């Protein structure tokens, strides 16, 4: 085996990938499966884990293109060069390009098995260059192998483990619990974990991911929460932006984290009592900061609390039942935020638009209304 200059490698084990486009030679699901399987070849023998993104920039961007396709290395039509990939690094680093003029297949010999070509290219994306071992996956010349019985040759195992070490899971060939599927913002049944503004952007949280939507961008950008806030929890309960612009609070079970930029504010995480909530509250469902009144609303089950940020105390008369203020809500609030003077409460697969002062309900919208699906 061989590696690139200075043993170039990723400095993290959680990597993201995104399939930017598809080849017409195979169905989309066949391409998805081939790519996923090709990445798992390397995950099985290292601590590396791969998560798929459906928008935004991933570490490994995967695309099909013919001839000149946007980098300085044009493809050459059918035959000869099948694909290429770039060694680990920012920008184009890690990306894999497949020559659209080739015929890619799921497992047939008539054409090139995408799984085999992709597994080889991802070796480059992770830091391996070519091997002169004829039996190695990283041998530069394509060799047909049945993807259903493929086992990574020892030369490649030694190569990739020289960079990342072995898989800490003892028996990697026992199916590991697969990471939950990447949530799809445009799934109409999606129930978001939390929503907040952040300096004019809107952030929508689900599981380990969040989407950020700016007034200018058409499609929201999907990222891993820990890419932006390395010390943040995932699958959070609630989030809100405080009156101090750029300061965001994330809630999960009995704790709250505060971030300015990507940095965790010293002293955090704290317990929920630090924002005035009674000790008996084990978790909250949603939170929002009301710009007009300077109050922070915490939604817990069928009630909500009003916290005065300035006086650092809970307002009298709270908690109140939701239906004392918000008409039309079918159940508990799962996410909440304010935008351009309106208050948006998510409950189940719908978002309810209110005027907080009057409690008047204006519109009932789908959860992904702001996600431009």
């Amino acid at each position: 085996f061989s590696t690139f200059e200075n043993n170039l490698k990723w400095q993290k084990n959680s990597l993201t990938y995104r399939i930017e486009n598809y080849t017409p030679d195979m169905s989309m699901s066949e391409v998805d499966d081939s790519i996923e399987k090709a990445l798992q070849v390397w995950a099985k023998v290292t601590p590396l884990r791969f998560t798929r993104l459906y928008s935004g920039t991933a570490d490994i961007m995967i695309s099909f293109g013919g001839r000149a396709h946007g980098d300085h290395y044009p493809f050459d039509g059918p035959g000869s060069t099948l694909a290429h990939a770039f060694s680990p690094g920012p920008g184009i680093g890690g990306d894999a390009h497949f020559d659209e003029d080739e015929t890619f297949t799921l497992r047939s010999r008539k054409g090139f098995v995408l799984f085999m070509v992709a597994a080889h290219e991802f070796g480059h994306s992770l830091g391996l260059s070519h091997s002169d071992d004829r039996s190695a996956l990283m041998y530069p010349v394509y060799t047909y192998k049945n993807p259903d019985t493929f086992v990574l040759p020892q030369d490649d195992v030694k190569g990739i483990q020289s960079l990342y070490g072995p898989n800490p899971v003892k028996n990697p060939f026992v199916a590991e619990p697969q990471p939950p599927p990447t949530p799809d913002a445009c799934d109409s049944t999606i129930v978001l974990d939390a929503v907040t503004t952040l300096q004019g952007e809107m952030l929508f949280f689900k599981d380990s991911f969040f989407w950020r939507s700016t007034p200018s961008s058409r499609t929201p950008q999907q990222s891993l929460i820990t890419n932006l806030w390395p010390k943040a929890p995932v699958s959070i309960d609630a989030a809100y932006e405080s009156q101090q612009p750029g300061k965001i609070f994330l809630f999960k079970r009995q704790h709250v984290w505060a971030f300015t930029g990507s940095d965790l504010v010293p002293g955090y995480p704290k317990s929920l009592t630090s924002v005035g909530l009674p000790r008996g509250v084990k978790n909250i469902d949603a939170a929002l900061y009301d710009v007009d009144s300077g109050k922070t609303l915490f939604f817990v089950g069928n009630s909500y609390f009003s916290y005065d940020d300035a006086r650092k105390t809970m307002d009298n008369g709270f908690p109140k039942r939701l239906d004392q203020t918000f008409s039309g809500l079918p159940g508990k609030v799962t996410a909440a935020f304010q935008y351009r003077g309106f208050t948006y409460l998510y409950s189940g697969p719908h978002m309810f638009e209110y005027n907080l002062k009057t409690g008047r309900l204006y519109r009932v919208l789908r959860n992904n209304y702001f996600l431009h699906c």
Partner: protein
Amino acid sequence: AVVYCMPVSEVTAQDESFAETYLKKFFNLTEESGPSVRRGISPVSKKLSEMQKFFGLQITGTLDSDTLAVMKKPRCGVPDGTVAR
């Protein structure tokens, strides 16, 4: 007299051009100058030997049918050996 017909493999000018393109792409063949040229070792021959060594072919420094056959196989577009580094 017995005449042996030696099957001389035809390496055409086109093959040579193809091989040069291949060596430029995968073995960093450049229009070299310097000591090796002055010693008469052509850059192409030097790179051919490098390629033949990498692929376990007979190292002749000249373009033969086996070497050409490997060059014509479908492959990855990333350069080989030290070049990739």
